[in-house]
Every structure is written in C-alpha cells, then in structure tokens.
C-alpha cells in the first residue's frame, strides 16, 4: 500500500502500464483465437502429414521394388519355360520327322524287296517256262528230225546242257 501511494505521489504512470498490460493480454488472447491457435494446429497437421507421407512413400518404394523383383523373377521363369517348350517342341518335331523318315525308308525298303522278290520270281518263272518250252520244242524238233520217238525224259540231261550253253551266250 505504501508502495502504491509512493508511486502515485511521483505520478508513476500506473494506469498506463496497467492498460498496456491488460491490452497486451487481450491481444494475446485474440491472436491465439484468430491466428496462432489455428495456424499452429495446421502447421502441426502439416508436419504430421509430411512425415506420414514420407513414410508412405518409403513403403510404396519398397513395395514397388519388391514387385519389380517379383516381376523380373516371373519374367525369367516364363522365358525359361518358353524356351523349354520351344526346345521340347523342336525335339518332338525332330523325332516325329525322324520316325516318319524311318518309316518311309522301311516302307521303301520293303517295297523294294518285294519288288525285287517279285522280279526274281518272275524271272525264275519265265526261265522255268522257257526251259520247259525249249525242252518241248527241242524234243519236237528232234523227233521231227529223227522221225523217231524220243523220250523227253531220256534227253533231259542233254537239253539242260544246251540251255546252260544258251544261258552263257
């Protein structure tokens, strides 16, 4: 109390000081309500958002890397499988071709053999037919010549000898 009266006696500007302090406090409250509070909230929100976005970005990056790796693996696998398929297709095609070729060869061989056999048989038949024809003809000629009955069987050896001779000529 003494202090206050002393200050008042010296005309200490208490009223002004009080006014300034009160006004300043009111200003503080108003600014907090109008600017500081909302802005600080927004700044905090933004800081949170940025940090969470950064985290999210890091996560996405890792996921993307993982995906790329997976994709690469799958691609490699697919490529391998494809080349396997191609190789097996090639192999089977080759095998089929070879089989077909072998079958054809076999068939050709058999046809050839058959033909050869047929030809040989026909030749033998022809020769045999010719032989008997020649023998009969010879006998007929001879019997005509000799006017004598000749037995075919008796003369067979001689005829064969002639024919062999013919063969050689």
């Amino acid at each position, binding site marked *: 109390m003494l202090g206050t009266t002393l200050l008042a006696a010296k005309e200490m500007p208490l009223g002004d000081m009080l006014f300034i302090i009160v006004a*300043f406090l009111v200003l503080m409250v108003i*600014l907090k309500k*109008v600017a500081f509070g909302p802005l600080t909230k927004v700044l905090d929100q933004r800081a949170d958002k940025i940090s969470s976005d950064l985290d999210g970005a890091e996560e996405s990056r890792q996921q993307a890397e993982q995906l790329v790796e997976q994709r690469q693996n799958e691609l490699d696998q697919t490529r391998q499988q494809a080349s396997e398929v191609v190789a097996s297709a090639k192999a089977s095609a080759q095998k089929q071709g070879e089989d077909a070729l072998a079958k054809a060869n076999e068939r050709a061989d058999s046809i050839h053999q058959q033909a050869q056999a047929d030809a040989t048989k026909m030749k033998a038949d022809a020769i045999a037919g010719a032989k008997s024809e020649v023998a009969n003809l010879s006998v007929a000629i001879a019997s005509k010549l000799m006017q004598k009955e000749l037995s075919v069987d008796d003369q067979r050896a001689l005829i064969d000898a002639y024919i062999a001779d013919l063969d050689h000529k």
Partner: protein
Amino acid sequence: MDEPTATFRFLGLTFDWSIVISTLVSMAIVVAIAVFLSRRPSVRPNKRQNAMEWMLDFSNSIIGGQLPKDLARKFGLYAFTLFFFVIVSNEIGLLLQIKMGDGVTYMKSPTADPIVTMTLSIMTLAIAHGIGVKELGLGGYLKNMLLTPYSWMLPLNIIEQLANFLTLSLRLFGNIFAGEMLLNLIASSMAWPGHFNGFLTILALPLEMIWQGFSLFIGAIQAYVFVILTGVFIAQLSGNE
C-alpha cells in the same frame, strides 16, 4: 519529452490519451492483419496464409533458437504477439502521427513512449523471472541469477539484472523515438506549412523518404531484437543458457 500531454482519470488511475489511442490503434491493426491473413487456414496454404505462417515461423524460430523445445512451444504465442505488436507499433508512427492544436500528439508509435517499452520489458522480465522460479525453485533461481558463474560476481549480477530492464526498454524506445523525432525535425524545419523555402523544401521530400525507409528497417530490427532478448532472458533465468 516536455511535450504537453492529455490525461484522463478512471478508477483513480491516470491514463494518457496518446498511449491509450496509439496502443489501441496498433493492436487493432495487428488484429485486422491477423484476421485477414489467417481466415480459414488449411493444410494446403493459400497466399495469405503463407504470409501469416511466415511470420509465425519467424517468431517461433527466434524463440526456438534460445530455448529448449518445450519452453519454446510454451512461449510461442507470447513471442508471436510481442513481435507482431512491437513491429506494427514501431512502424505505425512513420505512417501516421496526429498532433492536435493543443500541442498534444494523440497518435504516434506506442513504442516511441518510454512507458510503453518499459511496461513491455517489465512484462517480459516478470515472465522470465517467473519461469526461472518455476523451473529451478526459489533457491535455484536466486543462485542461478545472482551467483552464476562465481559467487563473487553477485554485485555484477545485481547490476546486470537492473541493466537488463533498462537496456531492453530504452533501446527500443530510443530507436523509435529518435526515428520519429528526426522525421518531425526534417518535416518541420525544412518544409513547414505556409513557408516555401526553395531548394530546402524540395530536398525535404527525398530526405524524409530516405529516413522513413531507414526507420522502417530500424523498426523491424528492433522488434526482432526485442523478441530475441526476451528469449535470451527467459533462457538465462531458467538456467537453459
């Protein structure tokens, strides 16, 4: 300083019209700017919000450079209000001064009045001492304030505390008062109304402009200094140096 003043009495206390009006006008401008610049704030800021956020960031970084994080956050609002009010108060007198016929200046920079700056520094120091007691306890606070770094420095420390108050308030007052004083001197000595002084009158305009620009700069610097010293005192007295 011997200028006439107009006072009124209210509740047994004497109020000075010029202080009351100047302070209220400055604060009204502060509030108007704040309301205009920070309407509907959003996470994705627009231009006006950016300007306000820049100011907020600035005051936060001033105080954040001096104090640990929790204290800085606690004093963010005080530093913001102080900076905003002081810078507007410093500049308003360059723009608007009203002197009535009775010789009383009703409107000027509030901070060109020693009472205002002393009140501001009393407020700052009261907060700094209060936070010192709160953080360190009364004994620790006294020891930290008076016996640090050595106990034989007690007299020096006492003087320092008194000097802190005077330098904090009178630095701001002196700078702003001198700036306005020189503005008035240039205006009234070279281009007073009703007299044409030839070359000098023409010279007054660029001189006035130059000095106004310089005072703007000084005003901003002083607001910055005032807030940074607030941070320093709080840090010192709460042992966070």
